[in-house]
């Protein structure tokens, strides 16, 4: 009886933990919105990366397949890449002059 109760509890907590770890459609929407906003900001600076676009596409594809864990992962990667391209553009705004042949 005791063992059964323990197994039941273990199954319950495992399921609860899995439910907590799994990303939802809302999680994807939030992550995707943040990524697309960052990518749009990179676009204003005319400095988008092809790899950001690829991650956004992969995120959408995973979301359409209902794989929100994967979708969030790709959206977060896209956001990180977009932010890196923004940082590059801001740094290069002054830095390019140091490369000019004088």
């Amino acid at each position: 009886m005791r063992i059964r109760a323990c197994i039941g509890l273990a199954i319950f907590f495992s399921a609860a933990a899995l439910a907590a770890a799994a990303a939802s459609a809302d999680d994807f929407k939030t992550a995707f919105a943040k990524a697309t906003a960052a990518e749009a900001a990179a676009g204003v600076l005319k400095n988008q990366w092809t790899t950001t676009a690829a991650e956004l596409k992969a995120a959408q594809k995973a979301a359409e397949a209902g794989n929100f864990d994967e979708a969030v992962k790709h959206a977060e990667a896209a956001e990180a890449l977009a932010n890196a391209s923004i940082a590059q553009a801001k740094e290069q705004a002054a830095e390019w002059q140091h490369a000019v042949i004088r």
Partner: protein
Amino acid sequence: MRRAVLLLAAMMGLAGPALAADTVNPKADFKAFRDYFTQRFPNVPLNDFVNGPYSMDADLRKQWVEIDAFPPYQFALDKGKQMFETPFKNGKTYGDCFANKGIGVRQNYPYFDTKSGEVITLDVALNQCRAANGEAPLDYTKDDMAALTAYMAYTSRGKPFDIKIPDDPRALAAYRKGEEYFYTRRGQLNFSCASCHVQSAGDHIRTEVLAPALGIVAALPIYRSEWGGMGTTSRRLVTCNSQVRGVPLKPEDELYRDVEFYLSYMSNGLPISGPGARP
């Protein structure tokens, strides 16, 4: 009082380099650019820089000489000549839009148009000509535009680049933006145009030899074996951006035109060699 003067002098001293860096001086840039390449590659005759990788690598040059016996761009030249001479629906031709009927004028492009305040490349001028005659524009990256510009370059072979920067702050701003674009690192690989064509000119990137920036625009448009066909200036710039994992601009975007303006000015005096053939 003396302290105030010293402080002012110190402030001016600090401000000096920043001001110098912000000053646009195409003539000084031109001299520094030319000196850099001629001193780095003292055995390359000045006019040979227009031959890009073939000026850097003897073996590659031998292959090119043999290939050029039957130029891979010949089909584009034939097509371009035919297109150039075929009247539009209204009976006019491309020649009617250009000085000297469009023959031997490649070396004057791009130019800064003081009316529109923009840089006009040969490709843009051709589409302006089409629009003025009621024709649909050509795609800036495709074969028809490559064929037309190939023919116009061919009729200009040997003529030295003669790019002028008018005394107009907008022209200087366009030049400056072109220079900035050329030296700005972009894409996930963090490369600028200069990373390959200045700092690494003559080096290998995989099996290819990187062309020097000096004279790099003289051979355009080019037949590329890698592409299996002709490529316009736009195609070349779009591909460069993509190769460093940057999202390319639209063909003939203002910035692309500015960078062509900058590079063409740097090539002043060097002969048109287009259309070219590249690996």
